[in-house]
């Protein structure tokens, strides 16, 4: 039998039993659509969290003073030592590597800020010009901190949008002088970015050069140093470079902690992968149920078409051909059903995306392949038994039933 004839014959069968075919397709479609939608949601959630982390800086290393882990054995641990300061010179030293894209030293504190009698207490962030790019922040007006020598304490300030509104209201802020603590700063820019980042509400923050902040708070140590690599692959290399450089500068003592985004991200990746797989597993059960349904309906179909099977044998169909015909029917049902399911699943994902902008429900390719594979194999697996029953029918008895 030619393949096109097998398909055509099967197609007339499916068309001949419309209701039955429609129900089977529905069952398969629901199963596949469930797999597609649920894995899309899982994948979307994973991407959402990854994107949130990426907004913190993708190829980022955070250096903080002090050792958060104990490594036993070092003699000075027995003596005990307070961590050395993380200085601006340390930060400068970290820029001297070809894999390092940006270095932003961070000093932090809280202070009063006032302009024309209005006063507020705000968190003050001391940093340099690199911070804007490193954090993927956006400016609303004016410009960010100037690109200058790292120990240059210029009296300029960039305001978060909320601080700017509360101090200046409708008036223009750029170029105005305001007071932070006991010093005067000139406003050079206003941030556009909203929301939180590194635990700071960007709308409420006030940014000044690091050196200014350190002298303002009379700090000797930086709060953090943020180091951005040129690529994600360079991160381990940079991590070693950071540790070695600072150990050398700190008299051979490793008194800093280095945190990479990677380790955090990897954990989240694992959690979400487990979540997606669980959800996919639940959806796969509905596929299996669809498979059982196909078997049930195929068995009824075999019983229903006994005379036809007998006739096929009488006009020269071998048992193998009868088997092929029934298997094709099961395969066609599950393939068509899963194709419909894919369309339903994809359009639901698109619908979810349009209803919740910012949430990116993307169907992973593996889920599509797996759903199609599972539906086809359940269709075939559960089609085998009815097809064999059909193939083994005794033609004499089959013909006598009508």
């Amino acid at each position, binding site marked *: *039998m*030619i393949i*096109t*004839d097998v398909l055509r*014959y099967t197609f*007339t*069968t499916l*068309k*001949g039993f419309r209701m039955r075919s429609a129900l089977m397709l529905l069952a398969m479609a629901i199963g596949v659509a469930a797999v597609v939608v649920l894995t899309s949601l899982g994948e979307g959630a994973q991407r959402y969290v990854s994107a949130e982390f990426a907004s913190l800086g993708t190829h980022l290393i955070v250096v903080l003073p002090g050792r958060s882990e104990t490594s036993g054995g070092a003699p000075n641990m027995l003596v005990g030592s307070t961590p050395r300061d993380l200085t601006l010179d340390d930060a400068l030293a970290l820029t001297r590597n070809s894999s390092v894209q940006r270095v932003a030293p961070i000093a932090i504190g809280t202070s009063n800020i006032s302009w024309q009698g209005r006063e507020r207490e705000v968190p003050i962030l001391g940093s340099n010009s690199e911070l804007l790019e490193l954090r993927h922040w956006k400016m609303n007006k004016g410009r960010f901190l100037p690109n200058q020598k790292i120990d240059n304490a210029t009296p300029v300030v960039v305001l978060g949008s909320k601080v700017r509104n509360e101090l200046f209201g409708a008036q223009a802020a750029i170029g105005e002088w305001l007071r932070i603590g006991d010093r005067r700063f000139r406003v050079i820019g206003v941030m556009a970015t909203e929301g939180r980042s590194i635990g700071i509400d960007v709308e409420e923050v006030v940014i000044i050069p690091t050196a200014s902040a350190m002298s303002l708070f009379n700090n000797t140590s930086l709060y953090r140093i943020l180091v951005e690599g040129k690529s994600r692959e360079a991160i381990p290399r940079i991590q070693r470079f950071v540790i070695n450089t600072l150990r050398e500068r700190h008299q051979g003592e490793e008194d800093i902690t280095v945190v990479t985004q990677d380790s955090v991200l990897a954990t989240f990746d694992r959690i979400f992968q487990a979540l997606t797989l669980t959800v996919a597993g639940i959806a796969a059960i509905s596929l299996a149920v669809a498979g059982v349904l196909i078997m049930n309906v195929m068995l009824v179909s075999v019983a229903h078409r006994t*005379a*036809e099977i*007998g*006739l*096929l*044998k*009488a*006009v*020269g*169909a*071998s*048992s*193998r*051909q009868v088997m092929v015909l029934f298997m094709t029917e099961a395969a066609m049902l599950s393939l068509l059903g899963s194709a419909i399911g894919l369309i339903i699943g994809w359009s639901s994902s698109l619908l979810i995306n349009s209803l919740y902008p910012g949430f990116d429900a993307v169907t992973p390719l593996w889920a599509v392949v797996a759903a199609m594979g599972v539906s086809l194999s359940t269709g075939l697996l559960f089609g085998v038994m009815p097809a064999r029953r059909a193939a083994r029918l*005794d*033609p*004499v008895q089959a*013909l006598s039933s*009508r």
Partner: protein
Amino acid sequence: MIELRGIERIFEVGDQQVHALDHVDLKIEAGEYLSIMGPSGSGKSTLLHILGLLDRPSAGHYLLHDHDITALSDEQLAATRRNEIGFVFQFFHLVPRLSARENIELPLVLAGMSSAKRKPRVDAILDATGMMDRAHHRPEQLSGGQRQRVAIARATIMQPALLLADEPTGNLDSTSGSEIVEVLEQLNNKGITLIVVTHDHELGKRAQRRIRMVDGKIAEDHRHEPVA
């Protein structure tokens, strides 16, 4: 053409053994017109099924064209059925979803013939049976006589040597019944070996050779001159 030697067919009914065919010997020459008659349960249908390779004998040998086909595999039996034997049934056994044309070409489809090659053959047989204008009708849209014509067309599309008819007029009124008998006898005139199983004496008497079966045995085997 056909030789049956000591054919037995035993059915197990409960714990009893029923001899549907009891040591049947039969020789049929090519082109013969043969009727098999007998009461219900005499084994005439079983004999027909064994002749048509739908059933296997419990013992004995069946030689078709001098080849013993009792030893053939399922695959080979199917091929032999397809190429050598045509069936006509009392209840037509047309596939209800398929049009007359599709029903007729079913054996060709199973034989793996391409649709380009099938078309002229089906056209020719539709033309010969006067069913061309009904080619796209489904069985439910055809009269009983027309259905049986389609069934005969299907049985003969492979140009088999042997045509087996099981009560071919049993489900037809007398007019279309005699038309169908005419069609079958024309085929016999062209050389096909025709075997008709029937209860109907009028139909049975038309055959040159009449076999009467009783209790799984051949009770009578007469040859007569053709009906004028």
